[in-house]
């Protein structure tokens, strides 16, 4: 992807907010999952202890990431798997393409995986004449529509049943089809079952990989994950290097944290754990592709590093007042919502103006931090990144940046606040100048650049007597 080829959050958020259908769908989804999550989390009286253990495990992983990766490489190889290392998306796509070509495969079935969306794997394969069929119901809908996912957990939440019915009728060549979700799911079942049975290669992501044993986990609901990791002869799993956990025992922590935070269930219907290959059971060839693609940049920043703790549950999306109104597309990244607002800029770098706009897509209310199952302090990282964005712009921005009104205003305010006498003098000036804009005790309209501020809120005028003045004069 070209740097800055996509719009910023601010540039398109308005359009998404105006889409009433989208807002209704997203609002309904986030509220439903949010309320359900609350119930299943309340059931566990050791939730905070689990979160803390989850945080500590992930911290330990990040602080020793190279050692655990080498341990994982060893244990997977010992169990019959082959480990590949991919420094970036191009690397990963080339490795995977070659593996599929070796198998002379052209039809590939895929489990939902955001990591493969991140590296645009499907497109890379398509360019080589390989069709990767998405088998998660929502991902299939998105793929058939030529659309982009809008939520980590429920990627097609922006589409309603009538739209899906029309899509399936035309793309799956069905004459009769109702818009009942059960009938739509049945249509997908029949279509995909044929493809599962004939597929030679399966591609998956991975939720966890255990360094100690080489065990990889896929957590899912529909059974397409089991199909893809069981039926083909060859399985290729793409795993972000941060998905490691040290020991098998750690699974007991994350398999309590993830389902309750994600689908808001005590446990999601299916979890598959496999260790290399097993004779006579499932794929006889297993390839594990370890992907960096910017993750080591995140690791390089001590405050930002905790972003790598993320287990992709999407709880932060569902509580975010910003995400709830704009939906996922406004983020122009496969990682939307609060976690996307901190992960995307770190993965892509601040030269990407679209990514660099994301740390501002937040009211800093902190709800995301409260629900995060591994205690990522998202507001802290947001502020940290805003600071980095400003410093970066200062350094790279040149003359245009130096004359930017916001930059000038901030500089002016910093000076004003840095000294008491200056601050008080400014207050007096404000009081003298505001009479023209003051109506009924409030300011609803300011001129020039300042009008943007008052377009959506009123400003309280400087009072006749400030507190400091009153304090001084009180005798």
């Amino acid at each position, binding site marked *: 992807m070209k740097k800055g080829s996509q719009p910023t959050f601010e540039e398109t958020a308005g359009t998404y907010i105006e889409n009433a259908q989208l807002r209704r*769908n997203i609002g309904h989804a986030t509220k439903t999952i949010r309320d359900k999550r609350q119930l299943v989390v309340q059931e566990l009286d050791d939730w905070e202890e689990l979160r*803390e*253990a989850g945080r*500590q495990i992930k911290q*330990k992983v990040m*602080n*020793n*990431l*190279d050692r655990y990766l*080498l341990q994982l490489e060893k244990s997977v190889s010992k169990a019959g798997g082959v480990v590949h*290392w991919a*420094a970036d998306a191009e*690397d990963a796509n080339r*490795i995977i393409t*070659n593996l599929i070509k070796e198998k002379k495969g052209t039809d590939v079935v895929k489990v939902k995986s955001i990591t493969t969306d991140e590296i645009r794997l499907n497109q890379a394969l398509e360019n080589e004449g390989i069709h990767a069929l998405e*088998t998660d*119901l*929502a991902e299939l809908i998105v793929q058939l529509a030529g659309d982009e996912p809008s939520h980590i957990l429920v990627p*097609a*939440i922006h589409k*309603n*049943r009538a739209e899906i019915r029309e899509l399936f009728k035309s793309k799956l060549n069905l004459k009769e089809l109702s818009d009942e*979700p059960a009938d*739509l*799911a049945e249509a*997908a079942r029949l279509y*995909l079952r044929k493809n599962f*049975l004939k597929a030679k290669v399966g591609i998956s992501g991975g939720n966890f990989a*255990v360094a*100690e044993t*080489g*065990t990889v986990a896929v957590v899912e609901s*529909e*059974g*397409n994950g*089991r199909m893809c990791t*069981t*039926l083909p002869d060859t399985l290729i799993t793409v795993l972000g290097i941060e998905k490691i956990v040290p020991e*098998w*025992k*750690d699974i*007991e*922590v994350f398999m*309590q944290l993830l389902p309750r935070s994600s689908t808001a269930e*005590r*446990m999601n*219907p299916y*979890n*598959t*754990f*496999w*260790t*290399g290959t*097993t004779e006579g*059971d*499932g794929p006889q060839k297993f390839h594990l592709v370890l992907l*960096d693609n910017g993750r*080591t940049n995140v*690791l*390089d920043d001590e405050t930002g590093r905790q972003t790598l703790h993320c287990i992709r549950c999407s709880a932060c999306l569902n509580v975010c007042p910003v995400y709830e109104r704009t939906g996922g597309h406004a983020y122009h990244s496969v990682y939307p919502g609060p976690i996307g607002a901190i992960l995307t800029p770190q993965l892509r770098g601040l030269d990407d103006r679209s990514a660099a706009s994301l740390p501002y897509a937040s009211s800093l209310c902190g709800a995301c931090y409260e629900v995060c199952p591994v205690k990522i302090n998202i507001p802290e990282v947001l502020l940290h990144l805003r600071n980095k964005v400003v410093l970066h712009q200062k350094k790279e921005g040149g003359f245009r940046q130096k004359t930017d009104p916001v930059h000038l205003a901030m500089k002016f305010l910093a000076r004003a606040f840095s000294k008491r006498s200056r601050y008080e003098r400014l207050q007096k000036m404000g009081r003298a100048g505001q009479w023209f804009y003051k109506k009924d005790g409030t300011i609803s309209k300011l001129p020039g650049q300042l009008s943007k501020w008052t377009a959506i809120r009123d400003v309280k005028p400087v009072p006749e007597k400030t507190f400091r003045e009153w304090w001084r004069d009180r005798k």
Partner: protein
Amino acid sequence: MVEGSEMSSSRDKILQRIDQALGNRTDSTDDVVERRYHQISELTAQEKVNLFQERVDEYKAATERVSEGELPGKLKKLCEEAGIKKLVLPPGIDENWLSELPKSMTFLHDEPQPLSKTQLNESDAVLTNCFLGVAQTGTIILNAGPGQGRRVLTLLPDIHICVIRQDQIVGILPEAIRKLDQTVSESGAPVTFISGPSATSDIELDRVEGVHGPRKLHVFIISES
């Protein structure tokens, strides 16, 4: 091979970047994680089985509490009611459970010759036991042991009938993970967690049971009381 050398250079690159990012580290892999969460359940055996049944039911799976002696009769009744004609049987399944099933039924054994995907796809149901059950989450755990078989056996048939004994039910997940230690680190056999039938909420968040895996899950719990 060019590819091999490229791959190893990516490997070096990644490891080097990590080493650089971490700088002078004080942490080590020996650091202990504080595990203050529950590791052992305080439920009695009776409470465990009750909770297990309640939680499995909530996933819209069917459960039935039976005694060892009642199971063959109940199984026969289920096969009649659900119209099960072709039943898949993994190696090591308890033959006594089948004693009342009519001779007219087709039994598909996975040994000596493994069943083909097509055979499995055209079957009506599969009968298995399991390795463990978890009461708190209503989860059934398979580890490809005797009476469970290959993973695909419980994946393609439309109905999964699973038999669990009361003493196989643990209270909470950490207890189950510990019991799976040996499976994962020694035999390396695949492990599957099953919590209710296959499901999706992808269309307008309406829950639909049965997408790709078995559409029905029927659990017989053998308990003595």
